[in-house]
């Protein structure tokens, strides 16, 4: 029998208790099916040097054209602020993540073991195992699907961008002037809809691969069961004595990168590039923070308290009631 840690036991007990309490056993399922993931071999990707736009980016844009936002002509500012996030005049931008560009390639030159190595890294949503973007959406507008991808419900999203704030990479991109908030009080509440890679959900549901995977001329992107992708990444990593990214970050993701140079160095270069941009604070240009934690780790670490508190309350009440009744009150 495998050893169960106290934390695991507690977690399972809470889950079992919750399901019984809610009677919602049908609704809950453990995410232990056979979800899909991707493995990016950065020793093969060259960012399509010979093309004006990398093939994966072009394929993604063509594939998802129909899903891109169609905002209103007149977009209100986000009262009481004098801002709005409108990317509709930057639809052609392919050098960062925008509501109209769900993947792009970052290229850095890194000194490693006395050599200068150029690394190209296609970026998009990592489709995390326990995605805080989906878990923490106050309106339930984002979900981890059994197949693995994390999807945004554009009918329900109000564009608060909390998902972007809790994502270690700030992936989801916001477009104002579109979505549910336009039907309520667009000036005062809501801010648009968040957009990001859905791993070509319709394609993978019908057994296909994401458009970027098929388009890669270097076969640098592999797609399949997450487990198999992790194994492939680990094997490749051992073979080149390299570095792996995405297996531990944010508590685990379904996107694995293998690089010949450390991701700490890549991150430094990316931060340099970002700081030199026209607006260094603009979203859509993720770094590669190594072993970055999940925002939910601390909260989840306190769950035992939520089990103990009512037990303590009941115990204290029993004792108090016994004492008062004994005292004839």
């Amino acid at each position: 029998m495998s050893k169960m840690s106290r934390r695991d036991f507690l977690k399972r007990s809470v889950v079992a208790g919750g399901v019984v309490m809610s009677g919602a056993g049908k609704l809950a399922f453990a995410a232990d099916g056979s979800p899909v993931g991707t493995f990016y071999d950065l020793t093969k990707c060259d960012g399509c040097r010979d093309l004006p736009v990398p093939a994966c980016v072009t394929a993604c844009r063509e594939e998802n054209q129909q899903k891109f936002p169609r905002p209103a002509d007149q977009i209100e500012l986000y009262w009481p602020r004098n801002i709005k996030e409108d990317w509709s005049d930057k639809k052609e931008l392919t050098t960062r993540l925008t509501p109209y560009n769900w993947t792009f390639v970052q290229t850095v030159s890194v000194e490693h073991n006395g050599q200068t190595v150029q690394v190209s890294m296609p970026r998009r949503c990592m489709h995390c195992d326990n995605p805080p973007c989906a878990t923490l959406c106050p309106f339930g507008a984002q979900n981890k699907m059994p197949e693995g991808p994390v999807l945004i419900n554009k009918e329900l999203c109000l564009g608060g961008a909390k998902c972007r704030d809790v994502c270690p990479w700030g992936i989801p991109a916001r477009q104002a002037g579109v979505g549910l908030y336009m039907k309520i009080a667009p000036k005062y509440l809501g801010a648009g809809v968040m957009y990001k890679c859905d791993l070509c959900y319709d394609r993978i549901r019908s057994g296909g691969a994401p458009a970027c995977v098929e388009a890669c001329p270097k076969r640098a992107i592999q797609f399949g069961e997450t487990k198999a992708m992790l194994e492939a990444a680990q094997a490749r990593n051992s073979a080149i004595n390299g570095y792996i990214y995405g297996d531990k970050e944010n508590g685990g993701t379904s996107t694995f990168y293998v690089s010949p140079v450390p991701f700490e160095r890549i991150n430094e270069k990316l931060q340099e590039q970002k700081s030199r941009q026209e607006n260094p604070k603009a979203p859509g240009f993720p770094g590669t923070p190594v072993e970055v934690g999940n925002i939910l780790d601390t909260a989840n670490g306190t769950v035992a308290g939520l089990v103990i508190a009512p037990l303590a309350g009941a115990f204290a009440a029993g004792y108090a009631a016994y004492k008062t009744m004994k005292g004839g009150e």
Partner: protein
Amino acid sequence: MAQKILPDENKVQRHGFRGRFTHWTVALSTLALIVSGFGQMPMYKRYYIADLPGLGWTADYSTTLIVHYLAAMVLLFAVTFHLVFHVIRKDYDLIPKRGDFRTSYLIIKAMVTEQEAPPSGKYLAEQRLAYAFLAFSFLIVGLTGLLKVLKNLPSVNFSAQAMVWISDLHTLSAFLLVFGIVAHLAAFLFRENRPLLPAMFTGKVNLNYVKHRHRLWYARLSGKGSAVSLQEAPAQVPEENIRVS
């Protein structure tokens, strides 16, 4: 805890330490839950609330989430204490009784028209109704909150539809709770209700106020007269006797 008449002080012991402790623990933890709960929506930053001195933390989701969890623990402790204590003692004074809607109407009408109110027990009919409303809101917000805690665990995932239901019910019941609390506090806009206020701090209320407005309770405490006869023949108490000193 013991409810009793304190003739020397011209007061009645209404709540003991335990009752007041439970009330204020529920109140303060609920306030923390409401503030941190609203912080789960992206509003404190947008509306400049986080720019107010000392409120910068309200825009930080990791902080407000921990505050929400810790306050939920305190609330769970107090609520289970309250429920278990009263169930063991079979003390159901706050549970609504048949006719409470009508009696509430009569009591409120009496306040507005400044006429004699129907006799009450320890709690006024509208207090029992308010308790039921708040308890219902707490139940829904608490259950959906616990489901949200489960959902936050790495090993748990809910279907898209369940997520929408749980999230929206949590938000909706939180709004019901806020409405209930506002109504609860609004009760003190009526002068007639104000003598009850000291009971939440010192545990005591004015004896003449009890004799006048909580005649059934007074009868029970003093062992004088039956509730039925009191209901039929409300005592006439001069207005000046009900003022709290």
